[in-house]
């Protein structure tokens, strides 16, 4: 039996598979389909200080091997999250990363302070890359300075493991990763969605209610793998890789490119059992290849000297 347990950035998980924020709510819906504690961890739905109604419909557009969404961080707001959904998911045996999103760095700090007071949270995922919110959101993730400012504000108020979720809509994602690493980020997760749009030709108008949305799914996987590879070269902190992972082989690509763990997103929308099947497929491959510990393959495809850490 291959050891599938991973530990990175102070986060412990029974296996390296998480579900990506915005594609698993707070775990309650998925738990009606499979026992949620089969997962290594979960990045819960993006939480903001105030409740958000989100954007108007249509919020979903199907694309070749992908899907665009412009939900717009619909969520009940910090107060209600602390009352209901968060305590519920914390009763389960998996690593819970609370995804937080805000307008100003101060908003992130206030969210971080509140979550920090909740026992049992594995860490924070700081979303500086949501393409679907007017203020802040992706703006922070587009430049090293703004990304650093958010990280600095969060670091000042919590000792929880902080994972910064990076935007792929940038020229040099390694530069953003370096900036948040310098401000004390414990890890980075990438990639968030790609800013996209579809024109409804017969109506001669953008199809989505918010004009643009974020593209995810297998379509963008090769770009995401490249970005994980680049970030693995540019920083030393651990990486959670995501972007179109639909099979164990996809997940292994991200880990060999330098990711210590992975997150499954769009695939869960199409097949709710995808995260569990991916865990099984990864385990089966490791058995076949005689891999005793899955941590051995972290960064296995990287040039010698880069991320040797992973290769125990």
């Amino acid at each position, binding site marked *: 039996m291959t050891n599938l347990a991973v530990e990175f950035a102070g986060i412990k998980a029974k296996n390296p598979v998480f579900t990506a924020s*915005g*594609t*698993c*709510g707070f775990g309650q*819906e*998925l738990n*009606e*389909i499979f026992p949620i504690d089969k997962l290594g961890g979960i990045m819960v*739905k993006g939480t903001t200080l105030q409740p958000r*109604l*989100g954007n108007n*419909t*249509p*919020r*979903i557009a*199907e*694309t*070749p*091997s*992908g*899907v665009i*969404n412009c*939900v717009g961080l*619909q969520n009940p707001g910090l107060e209600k999250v602390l009352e209901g959904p968060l305590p519920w998911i914390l009763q389960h045996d998996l690593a819970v990363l609370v995804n937080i999103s805000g307008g100003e760095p101060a908003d992130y700090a206030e969210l971080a302070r509140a979550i920090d007071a909740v026992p049992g949270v594995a860490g924070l995922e700081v979303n500086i890359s949501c393409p679907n919110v007017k203020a802040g959101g992706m703006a922070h993730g587009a430049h090293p300075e703004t990304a650093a400012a958010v990280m600095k504000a969060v670091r000042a108020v919590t000792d929880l493991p902080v994972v910064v979720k990076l935007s792929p809509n940038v020229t040099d994602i390694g530069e953003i990763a370096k900036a948040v690493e310098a401000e004390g980020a414990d890890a980075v997760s990438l990639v968030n969605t790609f800013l996209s749009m579809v024109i409804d030709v017969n109506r001669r108008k953008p199809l989505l209610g918010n004009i643009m949305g974020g593209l995810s*799914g*297998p379509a963008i996987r090769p770009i995401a793998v490249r970005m994980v590879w680049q970030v693995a070269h540019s920083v030393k902190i651990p990486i959670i890789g995501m972007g179109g992972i*639909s099979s164990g082989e996809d997940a292994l690509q991200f880990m060999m490119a330098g990711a210590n763990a992975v997150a499954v997103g*769009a695939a*869960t*929308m*199409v*097949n*709710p*059992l995808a995260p569990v099947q991916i865990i099984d497929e990864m385990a089966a491959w490791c058995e076949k290849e005689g891999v005793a510990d899955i941590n051995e393959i972290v960064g296995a495809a990287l040039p010698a000297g880069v991320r040797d850490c992973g290769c125990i």
Partner: protein
Amino acid sequence: MAENAIKKLVVTILVIKGIEAISAEVLDIFAVAEGIYEMELAAPTVAAKAKPGQFVMVRPNALGQPFLGRPMGIYDVDQKRGSITILFEVHGKGTTLLAKVQKGDMLPVVAPLGNGFDVPEDLGRALVVGGGIGVAPLYPLLLQLKEQGVYTEVLLGAQTADRLLAMDRLVRLNMPVTVFTDDGSMGTKGYPSQGLAELLKEGGFETVFCCGPMPLMRSVAQICAAADVPCQVSLEERMGCGFGICVGCVVDHKAADGTISKKRVCYDGPVFEGKEVFWND
């Protein structure tokens, strides 16, 4: 078969289990009208727990083309055959591919999804209003109403006589069915909503159940609200997942207590109280 289905159905709608992601064999597929198909899928576990008003997400293949499933109301359940039947109209790439599948093909299906209709134990008189393809989720409801001994009348609309669906099944229920067609090629010319206000005044119906085109559901909901008769509408929206995680298929909703929010059609619905829905479409 109908009698059988009725008994078994009533038994099983009491036991609800979880949602399943399965690969279902196509047992039968045929056109019932131009561009409208009836498809029977082998899904014993789903057939055993499906509730009237629930739906499935189905994909025409396992290749990821199209990427997303398509929501389809459960039109019929045959526990003896361990099958569920759906009814769908071709209006895009996904349904075009779905219409081309053949007997024996294995289709990815996630089911059963959503909350069904809520039929009060003591319901005495019900009015069921269907339009076009919207009759699909109403048929299992009619079976349940009959089983519970609820006096039920049906108003059924379609564009033309040859696009009037489910009549083969409805006749076996021995319920009063009033037919409407847009062109008057069968029954009354017009929509099931016309004359509804009067019908509600005189009919003494305690609840109205409706599924059909948005304009029909809107007017039925508004007429029921005016007549102060409860109205359960089964909505449709462009869906991502079908089981609540992507929050894509929302509808503006005003709860009885006045709370305004965006409800997920797939998970919080698809059945809503008509007067709690904002009909701004």
